[in-house]
């Protein structure tokens, strides 16, 4: 097709129709960009349906004036607007239409005015405009259109330049919005807007026809994950500098020259640095002039990005729109408050971590950690205020030595059993003060009763009970209450002593020597016996103890 210097009514109709089909065909690619979690997902679907409703409105009017057609387009979008992105699109089209005045045809200058007016209207309509979204793409591209029109009053020239700028702006969105950066995607709404105009340009250049069904080729840069080229600086570099009167401004100036995403914070004696650079060595070398370096962490972001692509965990949506859960792994960022606990068994450890424990020391009845072990965990915990849950009678005293040997502000909760420790963690709220947490945790511990089922290591006589080596014994709050030959029997006996009319929930943590099926069977039997109790069983994987029982 020859160069289209002016867009008349017929061209406009066909161009919009082509753009609509083009967007519809490529909506999944836009959908795939949804950052998770995000309200009202399905951006591509919503935008394509909105634009389809809009373009269908063009078929309903007979006028050949571009201004009438643009008004119809805006009206259709307004009625068919679906989802937030659809609503914003409707405002872009409204802004476009408002600038068409009463024009029959659009030349380059008029078109540029429309494209620029689109973003102005959208900015006005959105309650809180956020940069790094469709708004930014529309604005920057609109400005490029005005510049292009000043060079040459030619519609195709304007639209081509508009599109190039839109692409650039879109690829820049992850730099503006942290959620996009984290998910490794460009903004979905912006991508939808780019696709629409890509369709329009392809129509003008004759690459596609109205109603043509064409797929975006796979090389399109918004393919879901940041392309490697878009990572300008490869290494995410973080460290602390400890010294005297560190000249933060000098450091900042230097680091800004060798990278981006710069953060320099702290007082004169301790400064935290975060920078993306291609030469982490330079950053370290500069900083070491001012003091000693601590907690150095350097990560290769290109490799990380590749992993994210291959594992599919970059915020992809599946076809049905069901989204992969992103892992909520705890990052070691410096926080106000931390918790160190002691636990035996992988299962118990995982449960405690999932409840917010920052460090779990492996230990228990027969392998008490030393004060040094606990101190080590406290020092290692990324917080100045640290709560310790010893979760064992014998470890409480050891833990109580720790506050004397550390600079950190340490609180020891005298939790004597694992169920007490878990109960305390349930009430833990990292956003509250250490003092409030300590109080809540202490209160929480009082609300739980602990039973333990293990075996005797030697013959003994206790509480009037004859106990032989290897007998199964049941303890309540550390005191032997029952003895038997069979694990399930002892559990039931113990439960009958633990449960009273105030009990609501019973939890069994089964040990390394117990099969899951056996634990489930036991829960079923107990359920029959105590129908009013809610019961749960978890694999604690703890050694020596067949079962830990918690009754609340």
């Amino acid at each position, binding site marked *: 097709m020859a160069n289209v210097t002016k867009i008349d009514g017929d061209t406009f109709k066909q161009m919009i129709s082509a753009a609509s089909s083009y967007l519809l065909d490529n909506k999944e690619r836009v959908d795939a960009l949804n950052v*998770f*979690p*995000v*309200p*009202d*997902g*399905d951006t591509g679907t*919503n935008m394509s349906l909105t634009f389809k409703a809009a373009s269908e409105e063009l078929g309903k009017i007979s006028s050949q004036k571009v201004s009438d057609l643009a008004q119809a387009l805006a009206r259709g979008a*307004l*009625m*068919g*607007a*679906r*989802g*937030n992105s*659809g*609503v914003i699109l*409707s*405002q872009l089209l409204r802004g476009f239409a408002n600038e068409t005045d009463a024009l029959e045809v659009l030349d380059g200058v008029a078109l540029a005015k429309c494209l620029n007016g689109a973003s102005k209207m959208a900015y*006005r*309509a*959105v*309650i809180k405009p956020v940069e790094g979204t469709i708004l930014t793409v529309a604005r920057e591209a609109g400005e490029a259109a005005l510049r292009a029109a000043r060079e040459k009053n030619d519609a195709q020239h304007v639209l081509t330049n508009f599109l190039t700028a839109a692409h650039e702006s879109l690829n820049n969105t992850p730099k503006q919005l942290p959620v996009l950066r984290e998910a490794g995607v460009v903004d979905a709404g912006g991508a939808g807007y780019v696709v629409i105009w890509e369709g329009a340009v392809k129509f003008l250049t004759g690459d596609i026809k109205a109603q043509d069904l064409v797929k975006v080729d796979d090389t399109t840069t918004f393919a879901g994950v940041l392309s490697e080229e878009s990572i300008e600086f490869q290494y995410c570099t973080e460290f602390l500098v400890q010294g005297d009167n560190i000249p933060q401004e000098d450091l900042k100036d230097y680091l800004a020259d060798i990278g981006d995403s710069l953060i320099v914070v702290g007082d004169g004696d301790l400064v935290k640095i975060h920078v993306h650079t291609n030469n982490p060595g330079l950053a370290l070398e500069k900083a070491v002039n001012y003091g000693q370096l601590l907690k150095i962490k350097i990560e290769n972001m290109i490799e990380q990005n590749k992993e994210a692509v291959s594992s599919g965990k970059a915020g992809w949506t599946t076809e*049905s*729109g*069901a*989204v992969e*859960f992103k892992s*909520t792994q705890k990052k070691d960022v410096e926080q106000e408050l931390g918790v160190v606990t002691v636990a035996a068994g992988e299962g118990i450890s*995982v*449960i405690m971590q*999932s*409840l917010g424990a920052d460090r779990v020391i492996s230990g228990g009845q027969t392998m008490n950690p030393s004060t040094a072990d606990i101190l080590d965990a406290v020092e290692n915990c990324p917080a100045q205020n640290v709560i310790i849950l010893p979760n064992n009678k014998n470890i409480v005293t050891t833990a109580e030595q720790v506050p004397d040997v550390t600079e950190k502000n340490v609180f020891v909760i005298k939790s004597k059993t694992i169920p007490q420790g*878990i109960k305390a963690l*349930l*009430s833990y*709220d*990292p*956003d509250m003060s250490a003092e409030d947490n300590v109080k809540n945790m202490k209160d929480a511990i009082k609300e739980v009763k602990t039973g333990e089922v293990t075996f005797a290591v030697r013959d003994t006589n206790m509480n009037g009970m004859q106990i032989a080596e290897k007998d199964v014994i049941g303890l309540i709050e550390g005191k032997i209450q029952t003895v038997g030959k069979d694990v399930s029997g002892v559990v039931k006996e113990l439960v009958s002593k633990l449960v009273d009319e105030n009990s*609501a*929930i019973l*939890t069994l943590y089964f040990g390394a020597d117990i099969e899951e099926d056996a634990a489930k069977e036991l829960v079923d039997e107990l359920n029959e016996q105590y129908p009013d109790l*809610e019961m*749960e069983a*978890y694999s604690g994987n703890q050694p020596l103890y067949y079962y830990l029982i918690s009754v*609340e």
Partner: protein
Amino acid sequence: MSKTVIVIDSTADLPKSIREELDLHIVPLNVHFGTEVFRDQVDLNSQSFYAKLKENKSMIPRTSQPSPAQFVDVYKQVASSDDQIISFHISNKASGTIQSALIAKSLLPEYNIEVIDSEGLSIHYGMQVIEMAKKAREGASVEEILKHRELVKKNIQVCFTVETLEYLHKNGRIGSASAFLGTVLSIKPILSIENGMVSGIEKIRGRKRALKRLVEYIVEKTADSTGENLYLGIVQGDAMEEADALEAELRKVFPKVGSILRADMGPIIGAHAGPGTVGIVAYKI
């Protein structure tokens, strides 16, 4: 004579009888099951929604705000340019509904429309609507109605529990309760609404204790022991029996409370909170 008209959206979860009694005009949001689209309460009521949810266990329904044109239509239908419209809606942080309402307002410059964010969800929003509508019926001015609503908003207490956090999580509406995610133990969270978004209050183990905690929370927050001047509402999504038990419990702790609003959680909020959600709203004036 000019009149004051209140336009709300379907997420207020108010029962039909109240909607009719208070002459409320409702703009529906949309529920999407895959490619099927339903208008909330028009094409799909709460009952059929939860039934559908059970049929399609793997499918998380999605929702979308009304289009600006829907608002334009309703505004034009219920009022003239002489009238006052109060367009009062679901929290802006949870839905783009207000966005559509504001665009509609900008398209009708000759109309007098106040678009207000309730910063609420479900009957936390709905009970504010009731108070406004009562004032409007007394012939109060727009200013008085909005002032009264501010007062209610300041005093209103809300808490709820969900069967699972999965729905809030998958739909991106989990707010500060995200801290409750990832726990290996099964948690029944006590949640509230703060600044228009879901917030986490407490992690509870066991559904029964969570329900009990809801009542305790309301008692603590209202600092009331008789319930004499207390307005209470209970909303449930596919958890009628538990809501009944909750009402009995509330009547026990607040012996002098009058009628208690009972509401079914509609498809929109239900899609985000999931089945098994139960909540209490309380306020004094």
